[in-house]
């Protein structure tokens, strides 16, 4: 089956990102395809490479980045939600005159059309978050 995943809450505050990650791992292990993981609302905060949790805790952001690399996952952060919350890549930094970027490896910033496309192309969209 082709799944897409929607993550609507930020890391650490809410379990949504952890559960989405575990679901994604389980789906891949069962041989399903993940068309896309889309981060919306505070979920965009899962895409900042500046995250630095204590060493004995899981690194939620790095974990997504690693999985993206290993499984060629498409991790998409919503541009409008990201702009509100200060998640920036090179292109956005240039466009908006920012002096820094913080998008984590394996993530890309794009529009809400990517979420609608995920709905069209996938058999199921599974939402994590309130």
């Amino acid at each position, binding site marked *: 089956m082709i799944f897409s995943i929607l993550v609507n809450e930020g890391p650490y505050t809410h379990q949504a990102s952890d559960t989405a990650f575990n679901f994604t791992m389980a789906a891949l292990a069962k041989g399903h395809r993940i068309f896309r993981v889309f981060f919306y609302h505070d979920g965009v905060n899962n895409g900042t490479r500046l995250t630095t949790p204590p060493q004995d805790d899981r690194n939620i952001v790095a974990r997504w980045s690693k999985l993206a690399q290993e499984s060629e996952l498409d991790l998409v952060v919503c541009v409008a*939600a990201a702009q509100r919350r200060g998640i920036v890549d090179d292109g956005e930094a240039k466009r908006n005159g920012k002096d820094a970027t913080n998008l984590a490896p394996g993530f890309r910033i794009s529009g809400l059309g990517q979420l609608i496309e995920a*709905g069209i192309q996938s058999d199921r*969209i599974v*939402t994590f978050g309130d």
Partner: protein
Amino acid sequence: MSTIKKFLFVNRKAPYGTVYALESLEVVLIGAAFEQDVSLAFMDDGVYQLKKGHQTKGIGMKGFEKTYGALEDYDVTKLYVDQESMAARGLTPDDLCVPVEMMPRADMGKLMEEQDVVLSF
């Protein structure tokens, strides 16, 4: 991208206090721009999103009541409101800023079953 799917956006939260209602509307408009078969459902405190006369000056936030009125321009005309949620809050269709179809909760379940994609905000 010629596939047309049935998208239902379920709105459960009050319009202000959290960003969900505003960011849900943004997805709805993109869904309409992609020429999908878009419906909206309003349940729980989500029915307050459609209440006439949002006054947001006091909380320093941009009001977006007008966007609901503009949905028609995007061919988004299927707006369903949960009857029980309305009754629990003392609201009638006259209190709302756009025309809606009042729907008993049991039928809301059927509506969701008919969809290809259900996104809840």
